[in-house]
């Protein structure tokens, strides 16, 4: 039965170490010994860190929280791929049974101008919050809502909206994009709210504002490579970006500004 035949691995890690946002940063090598294949990737780092602490060294800093693939905190590039090689998986859900004994693993932070490194593998992704605060919402004050079933929503649309809304805001799309673009993130929100009747009144305004903020935040532009969607741990589809393009065009044509 899987998950219980814990074999042990010995690995070499090449980890990006950077004291703070001003430090230039460099790679450092560590041995990870006797790692059970049942460990998650982050648990493997825990073990390495525990050893570093007892040796009086500074442990590797990385963001993590729920460790079940939903909070979007863990973001690191593992052997060139955001969250590692497996599709539809966050770093915390990646398990060591996916690695081979003796392997060298290169671990880097998500790299983008809009995601400055705070320390080691920890980056600041608050640019995403700025994008949301510029328009990623429905302007409805508490208390003014009609009965929930007053407006029926076709199941197909609700399902598509839900799928777009499952974005966890981890930033893997930006990390994977050759241009560090946040189009997949932004487009997921545009699709989520745009597909629902509740989002309709602010449809034009939302897309114009959010795109403006995305550009200001220092993300690059999209060149339709689709790398974002391949890296997305929640499998947010590339079609959302195409939809965003259409929404933006529509809004620009109708805009009176």
């Amino acid at each position, binding site marked *: 039965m899987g998950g219980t035949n814990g074999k042990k691995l010995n690995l070499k890690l090449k980890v990006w170490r950077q004291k703070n946002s001003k430090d230039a940063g460099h790679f450092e090598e560590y041995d990870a010994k006797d790692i059970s294949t049942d460990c998650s990737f982050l648990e493997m780092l825990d073990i390495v860190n525990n050893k570093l602490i007892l040796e009086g060294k500074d442990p590797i800093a990385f963001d993590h929280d729920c460790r079940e693939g939903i909070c979007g905190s863990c973001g690191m590039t593992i052997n060139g791929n955001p969250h590692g090689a497996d599709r539809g998986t966050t770093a915390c859900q990646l398990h060591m049974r996916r690695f081979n004994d003796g392997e060298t693993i290169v671990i*880097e932070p998500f790299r983008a101008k809009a995601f400055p490194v705070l320390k080691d593998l920890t980056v600041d992704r608050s640019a995403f919050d700025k994008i949301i605060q510029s328009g990623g919402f429905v302007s409805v004050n508490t208390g003014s809502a009609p009965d929930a079933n007053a407006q029926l929503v076709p199941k197909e649309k609700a399902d598509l909206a839900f799928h777009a809304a499952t974005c966890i805001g981890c930033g893997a799309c930006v990390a994977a994009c050759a241009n560090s673009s946040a189009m997949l993130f932004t487009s997921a929100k545009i699709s989520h709210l745009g597909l629902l009747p509740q989002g309709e009144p602010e449809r034009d305004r939302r897309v114009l504002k959010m795109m403006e903020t995305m550009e200001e935040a220092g993300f690059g532009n999209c060149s339709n490579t689709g790398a974002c969607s*391949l890296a997305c741990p929640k499998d947010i589809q590339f079609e959302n970006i195409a939809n965003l393009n259409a929404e933006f065009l529509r809004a620009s044509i109708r805009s009176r500004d």
Partner: protein
Amino acid sequence: MKYITSAIGRKQLMAVTGLAWSLFVLSHMAANLLILFDAEAYNKYSHALISNPAIYLAEAGLLLTILAHIVNGIRLTIENRSARPQKYAMPTNGEKAARFQSKWMVYHGTLLAIFLVWHLLTFKFGTVYMVTYNGVEMRDLHRLVLEVFQDPMYVAGYLLCMVAVGFHLSHGFYSAFASLGLSHPRYMSLMNKFGYLYALIIAAGFISQPIYVYCIAVR
């Protein structure tokens, strides 16, 4: 005009200009296939094109679109590069790697820009041979083409550039539709396949000409 300076606006500008040139290269390639059949027809067709006063308008339009495509493309590339000041030690790979032609648009694009100049210098501004059919004097472009394609180095360079055209189109054609908002997954995947087919036809059509000349026509 905010739209035209916006990220998506410029992306859509790439799409529209790219699509315009996609159509142009299709017609260019198709008409040039005449070379496989008949010198006179080839020359008469060329003459009909260049003697039509509307050609100046068309040329101006093509020049403008390609300049917009190139300048915009360069600007976007510079901006996109600056969005990641610190490069990765390793690129995405395996199941998460984007297809290479999409990542290399700027490289084959640059090659194509150089090719374009070279191409114009060779043919449009190249040696002028004249020929007369039914009393009408016109450029003997057929002779020029035959002459040029006898140089194996030239043919090799030309072939390389046509492969680049294929790659550029295989991403560009589909990408343009995505940029313009075609988002239904079924039609997107159809358009993706069609993009490959389109690229293949254009590249094969252009490649057939020097091959024909070099291997068959001249011997």
